[in-house]
């Protein structure tokens, strides 16, 4: 089997290619985000343009670098030491772009984003605050290497951590992971070193390292970044964990909604086997580790570790009754350790670079970095890697650019529907789990931050999240699937104008009862509602007692009113024509001309169709049905 030194030597041409030592390199970032922006077409068009001009340059596919707002992103390394990033390079721009950047050598052109290195006199990437604030460690190779070429990963340091770990004892590796204070990056926050030690000391054999790449929390694509753009970092982390815990096999469970991630991880595993990094004699050190990639099929609860295990075990992914816990009895009864993608990735970085490098910065409670995906009502959507001493406000304002013009921050969803929703004080929190827990949250989450501005309705959000959680409930325990169903019913009734004073009490009772669910899905399901009742009480009460939705969203509490005289004025002629063309009622065969009574016309003629959100008592509200009140406790 090749040694690590052999692999490095084999990767030398790849290193030369990445560093543009022999010829210029044009690298087009291709991942799910940039594909949506046309990156594959850009890559093909640039290849065509370079070939047509007979230029001697490498045109590579590389991974995405997280800058969704700038996609398609292209990096040009014209000469060694010169690296410049360009944004929004579309396929139709390719010829002009190649002429400008390569043929004429105009570094500064209309696509320029910033220089990473070299290219003096040109705007730097560090001039962008959203770039310079980042500490891109886990992301250091994203957008630099082709994730489908193992040599490029090795050239950049992949598996150097494994090489180092194989020269340490199990206890030494675990001690290093423990000293780093690395904790579960899905939001579970459990110390990773201790978890690996559970498996090491478990008497159950064989043992397996399991990677939770289900990432079902909407708004989070942190794990997708690693899976698609640096899969070898994950594989390395799992093998290191296997070495430390005595496991000889690994499972990577990838959600169905990430097909490109699945493809690339499968390919990476194949290439790792080819290079002897997986198999019966890893790096020639007599250590055996096998890897299996399992593809999910659409189920949020398969992101819960026992649901994930159940899903691998040839069946429905229903979370299990515990104990026993995975270290004692996991996948098919094997001792198992389940960790998030980013936890393994962080462990690989740690072993590659050492404890001292990892512990900078060190807040006392946490060290190192974490990746965050920012979306929602923000100006810049993307994935950013921040040091553990950064704040939510920095993520929101510096990285994401704050709310859209004319809007104000209203709420933060820090980690999927189960973690709840936070008001303005969240902005001042450091991005550390302890800070969130001190304010009453169960955790900080896996890094998927969704920001809401004042156009969002909290009650509507609660209703939508509870519906999602009900839909995804596995059904094992009535507490969960019945409890979420009941919460949806109450919230929807409130949204229709049938809110009652007793509803808050009922919702709290449901929240209390849901604590007895079998797994975290039911247990945490009421979080968003409890948060709303605590931190957005006046908005909630407005819906119930005044039948008013201040964000003009809840359909039972608003209606559209068209000023038809205004509609016929000349300045609205074009929009009115479009409204007639796109009339929903006409298209559905229900009317012969636009009635101006719905959302479509509201969008097309905002000055003509207004949203009425306040009703006189008795008008527009649903009638109060009779009900039996629960006894007071």
């Amino acid at each position, binding site marked *: 089997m090749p040694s690590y030194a052999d692999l490095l030597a084999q990767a030398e041409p790849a290193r030369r290619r990445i560093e543009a030592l022999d010829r210029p390199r044009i690298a087009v970032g291709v991942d799910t985000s940039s594909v949506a922006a046309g990156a594959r077409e850009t890559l093909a068009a640039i290849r065509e343009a370079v070939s047509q001009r007979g230029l001697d340059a490498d045109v590579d596919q590389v991974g995405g670098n997280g800058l969704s707002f700038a*996609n398609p992103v292209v990096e040009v390394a014209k000469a060694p030491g010169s690296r410049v990033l360009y944004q929004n390079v579309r396929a139709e721009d390719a010829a002009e772009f190649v002429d400008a950047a390569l043929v004429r050598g105009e570094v500064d052109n209309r696509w320029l984003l910033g220089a990473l290195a070299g290219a003096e006199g040109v705007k730097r990437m560090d001039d962008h605050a959203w770039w310079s604030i980042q500490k891109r460690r886990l992301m250091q190779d994203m957008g630099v290497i082709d994730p489908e070429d193992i040599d490029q990963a090795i050239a950049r340091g992949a598996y150097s951590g494994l090489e180092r770990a194989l020269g340490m004892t199990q206890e030494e590796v675990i001690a290093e992971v423990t000293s780093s204070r690395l904790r579960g990056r899905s939001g579970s926050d459990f110390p990773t070193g201790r978890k690996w030690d559970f498996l090491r000391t478990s008497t159950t054999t064989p043992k397996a390292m399991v990677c939770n790449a289900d990432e079902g929390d909407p708004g989070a694509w942190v794990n997708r970044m690693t899976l698609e753009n640096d899969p070898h970092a994950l594989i390395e982390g799992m093998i290191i964990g296997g070495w430390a815990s005595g496991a000889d096999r690994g499972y990577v469970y990838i959600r169905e909604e990430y097909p490109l991630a699945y493809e690339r991880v499968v390919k990476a595993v194949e290439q790792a086997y080819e290079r002897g990094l997986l198999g019966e004699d890893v790096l020639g050190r007599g250590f055996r580790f096998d890897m*299996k990639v399992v593809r999910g099929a659409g189920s949020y609860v398969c992101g819960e570790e026992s649901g994930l295990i159940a899903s691998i075990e040839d069946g429905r992914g229903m979370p299990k009754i515990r104990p026993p816990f995975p270290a004692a009895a996991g996948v098919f009864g094997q001792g198992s350790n389940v960790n998030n993608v980013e936890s393994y990735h962080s462990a690989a970085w740690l072993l590659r670079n050492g404890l001292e490098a990892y512990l900078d910065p060190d807040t006392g409670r946490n060290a190192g970095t974490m990746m965050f995906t920012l979306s929602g009502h923000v100006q810049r959507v*993307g994935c950013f890697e921040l040091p553990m001493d950064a704040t939510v406000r920095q993520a929101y304002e510096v990285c994401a650019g704050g709310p859209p013009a004319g809007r104000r921050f209203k709420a933060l969803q820090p980690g999927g529907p189960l973690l709840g929703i936070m008001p303005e004080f969240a902005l001042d929190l450091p991005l550390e789990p302890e800070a969130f827990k001190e304010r009453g949250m169960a955790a900080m989450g896996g890094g998927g931050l969704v920001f809401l501005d004042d156009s969002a309705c909290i009650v509507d959000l609660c209703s939508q999240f509870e519906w999602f959680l009900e*839909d995804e409930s596995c059904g094992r325990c009535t507490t969960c699937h019945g409890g979420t169903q009941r919460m949806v019913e109450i919230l929807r009734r409130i949204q229709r104008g049938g809110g009652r004073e007793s509803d808050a009490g009922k919702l709290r009772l449901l929240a209390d009862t849901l604590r007895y669910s079998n797994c975290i899905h039911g247990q945490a399901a009421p979080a968003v509602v409890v948060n709303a009742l605590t931190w957005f009480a006046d908005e909630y009460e407005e819906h119930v007692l005044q039948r008013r939705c201040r964000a003009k969203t809840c359909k039972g509490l608003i209606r559209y009113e068209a000023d038809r005289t205004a509609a016929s004025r000349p300045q609205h002629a074009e929009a009115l024509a479009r409204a007639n063309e*796109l009339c929903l009622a006409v298209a559905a065969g229900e009317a012969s001309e636009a009635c101006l009574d719905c959302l479509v016309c509201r969008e097309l003629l905002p000055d003509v169709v207004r949203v009425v959100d306040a009703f006189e008592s008795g008008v527009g509200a649903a009638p109060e049905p009779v009900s039996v009140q629960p006894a007071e406790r």
Partner: protein
Amino acid sequence: MTSFSGAAKRTEATVEVRQLLEGLVPGEGDLLEALHRIQHRYGYVPRAAIPAVAQHLRLPESRVYGAVTFYSEFRQTPPPETLISWCSGPACYIKGGEGIRLVLEKLLGCALGENTPDNRLGLHLGQCNGTCDNAPQVWVDGRVVGPLTAAGTVELVKGLKGAAGRGRRRRPAG
């Protein structure tokens, strides 16, 4: 039992399914892969395929059926010619996703998870996959279309329904 011709068709299908399952073994976590391969081949998991899967992986048929119905991405009926997947994620939702869904359901005359009567179009409940810079969005046969408005959705569906406009529309105006 059914007629001879029915039995013959079942046998052919069973042989084909067995070929698809080659290399998969019981007790190693291959059920999801088995079902993925079948759906990839037929566009859905036919009821008739379940016995072959159960036999190959030494599982009760009820367990295989349970898996097919548990996971949202396995279909039990053939897919439509063009599938519109609506994103249910929070970023899309707060930027007008609900309005898009209502327009889709009204114009197609069916709910999420259903097809139009002629099976040309169908709706699907999609999950967030992190292309939130396009919010609010849908996927048309797996391709992202967004940001959309309710008006733009009307245009999109008309384009998909119309004879000339059948196929992909990336970014409808408005």
